[in-house]
């Protein structure tokens, strides 16, 4: 039963993704700027013959709906076209940059949880204490702070002033990492390169905190409030009266129930992560997908923008789907 429901939900996501592709395509095509001009932008001059040749190579001389059809057909087969500016297949560019963004997202998620969980739990358990008030104030600050500013402040203190952490990039050159998967942390472990491991972890700290901070603020509050609710609920009172230790009450009962809204919120934060990573990647010079999209938009590199936005949209839709699915497992009362 559940499996069918899951399948249904997954199938519904597909038209959405196609819709996204169409919107992006239209946007890019209707944006002022001749793609051929852009492709030739860097070089000295080109002959008229070459211009025509390029136009037909990239199907730019065909009517709009044919171009759309060709794009969609290619996309389904995994061919997202050629980048105008870098002259290589879009999928290659995305594949190269994706691990960096994923590593950053994982790092951010890690910091989100590591900040939010203890704070949320402790604030709920010791409600209205100084800790509670401080952390609620802190979480307010977290959602009010623009990510780009937080990043810059962190760089100012931890890199420029204290020299504790690196200013930008993913890894120091002299770590000589032999990249296999593109996930530097994984690669350093696989190749037993300690220096690379430490270097890549160090580089993940400031960007991870910056990206995870805003989400942490939200998640902490959600954990706190849902735990507060459960801690006051009847069956917890019952458990306490039965003699279950306070710790048992907190961890076993309250926390488990707090997981539900937590999972929801974390899932929703995926959207924030996806959007925020562009800013964080720009601030920290992180060679990921976000930074590539920003410069591709400025450079009117249509195929690259199309492909990247599709990747983002797919990720977003899938994340929501996973959250919904997890939801049903956590709370059987809620059906898809």
């Amino acid at each position: 039963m559940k499996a069918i429901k899951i399948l249904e939900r997954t199938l519904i996501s597909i038209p959405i993704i196609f819709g996204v592709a169409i919107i992006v395509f239209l946007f890019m095509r209707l944006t002022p700027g001749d793609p051929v001009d852009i492709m030739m932008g860097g070089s000295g001059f080109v002959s008229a013959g070459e211009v025509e040749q390029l136009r037909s190579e990239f199907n730019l001389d065909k009517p709009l709906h044919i171009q759309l059809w060709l794009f969609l057909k290619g996309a389904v087969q995994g061919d997202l076209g050629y980048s105008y500016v870098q002259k290589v297949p879009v999928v290659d560019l995305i594949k190269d940059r994706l691990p960096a963004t994923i590593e950053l997202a994982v790092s951010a998620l890690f910091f989100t949880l590591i900040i939010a969980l203890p704070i949320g739990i402790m604030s709920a358990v010791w409600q209205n204490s100084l800790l509670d008030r401080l952390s609620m104030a802190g979480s307010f600050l977290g959602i009010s702070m623009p990510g780009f500013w937080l990043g810059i402040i962190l760089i100012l203190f931890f890199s420029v002033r204290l020299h504790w952490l690196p200013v930008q990039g993913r890894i120091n050159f002299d770590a000589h990492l032999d990249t296999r998967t593109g996930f530097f942390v994984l690669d350093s472990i696989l190749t037993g390169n300690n220096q690379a491991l430490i270097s890549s972890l160090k580089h993940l700290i400031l960007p991870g905190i910056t990206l995870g901070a805003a989400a942490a603020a939200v998640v902490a509050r959600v954990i706190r409030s849902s735990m507060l609710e459960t801690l006051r609920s009847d069956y917890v009172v019952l458990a306490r009266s039965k003699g279950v230790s306070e710790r048992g009450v907190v961890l076993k009962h309250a926390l488990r129930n707090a997981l539900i809204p937590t999972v929801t919120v974390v899932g929703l934060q995926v959207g924030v992560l996806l959007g925020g990573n562009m800013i964080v990647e720009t601030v920290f010079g992180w060679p990921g997908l976000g930074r590539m999209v920003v410069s591709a938009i400025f450079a009117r590199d249509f195929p690259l923008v199309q492909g990247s936005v599709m990747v983002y949209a797919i990720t977003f839709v899938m994340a929501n789907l996973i959250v919904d699915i997890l939801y049903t497992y956590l709370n059987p009362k809620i059906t898809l």
Partner: protein
Amino acid sequence: MFSKKRFAISLVLLLGFVLSACGGATPTPSVQSNPTDVQATAPATEAPVSVEPQTIVVALAAAPQTLDPADHRDRTSETVIRDMFDGLVTRDNISGVHLELATDITWTDDTTLAITLREGVKFHDGSEMTADDVVFTFDRIIKENMIEYPEAHTSPRKGLIAPLVSIEKTGDYSVVMHFSAPFPTGMQMLVHQQILPKAYLESVGTEGFIAAPIGTGPFKFVSAQPGYTEIVMEKFADYYGGAPDLTPVGTACVDTAVFRVIPEASTRVAALLAGEVDIIQNVPAELVSTLEQVPGIQIKTTPGTSPIWMEMNVNQAPFDDVRVRQAFNYAIDKDLLVSAIYGGKAVVLPGALSPNNNFADQTLKPYAYDTVKALELLAEAGWKDSNADNMLDKNGANFSFTIDTEEKYRSISEAVANQLRAIGIDASVRIWDYAVVKPLLLNGERMAFLDAWGDSAFDPVGHMEAKWHGFLTGTSYGRGNFSGYNNPKVNELIIQGETTVDVAERHTIYDEAQQLIYADAPAIFLVLPDVVEAASARVLNWNPASDGRINLHDVCLEK
């Protein structure tokens, strides 16, 4: 049940451990590199060779576009390429041309060049360079559609040696080049073409070549990150030594060279201060005085070859009136720009050519800073403040325009806009991606564009016909002409200068052209910044080059 709390606590502990393990250490450049598979070479070079392998890291301000010497028009690409590829001739740090792969180059007549090649030069794959490679290299540049990847197109560098008609082999180590007309800047232009290995390129194709380039330069390619954000090369043990004129001659001093791209200037500087890189390009001028006081850092400047101006669209109001354009030249305090934005490391442009250019008209003086005169001229053109709102207007509309520019010229563009606003002109700045705005400019759709156009050959050729000649589609004339300026007399002079060999005659021709352009003022002639680079004190034998190239051949790292 899985204890979330314990999990969290242990993660915190782990994090603390990791941080403490590296937190206290001051970041010193750890110069270790993996043992390279450099064959044990015959030593006996003049450069000091240290026992432990050394790596030098250079921070570039932008990423190279490609590693194919024939497929770009970009200084950064050329910088990286010229450490792996040599040419027939090379340039020293200023403007002198020296023999490199050629042992002799002579004009046998006005349009024929005989070249004798150096023998015993090896490509990185061990094969020897011969006349076949030289012929192949130049054929690939000048013939149509010779570069087949990603789709067949002509080399964008063809325009740099436009008069070259054909090249033929006259012996295993000699070639002859035929030109369509006298080519006075031939030597300077040949500096910008590097020799490629025919056999290798033909066997792997352009795509394979870009993935693993092979040249005759002091360094050989090891690896590159996608988008060329990082390029690694290692010393080529069988390097023939390099240009005999430019000592030291021999293999490279360091074992490995890495080029990293760090677009943000402050990050570049921070990386240098932290010891993460050894040399950085494009030091922002405001940092020069601060950096000069940091022990362990050296800063060097050299006259630059990228003059900056703000071109105005001369075919549209309000800039179709020469008085307005001249007024703008009087309105800008260029000395202030030099001292404030470039920290004094720049010179004011007297006119169309950089003052260091071999054919600059030395009698031309920069437009003076005279706001009174500027307002007079504007008033003559009809622009007055008729409604006392401190803004100039005409026929009821304020003088309002946008300065288009690229991100790298943001500071100076804003300063120019600022000074114009101070005299009542509503100027604002808009940042573009060059490739996006260029077609609009050539189409005459924009009003003003602030940018630089290089003359690394120190000769008007390569510069004037691109910038000040009228735009002719399908040719290289006017390819950088964003003002739409098209003065038939100037066009004539430019073309004449290209093929005149007599130096005195060229002076006359170019003097006249410069004076005409000065009077017509299609642009505000702004400044010529110096090349400012910085390096750690451990870097020896290093000097910035006027053309922006970072030549690592002779650079050493103190042990």
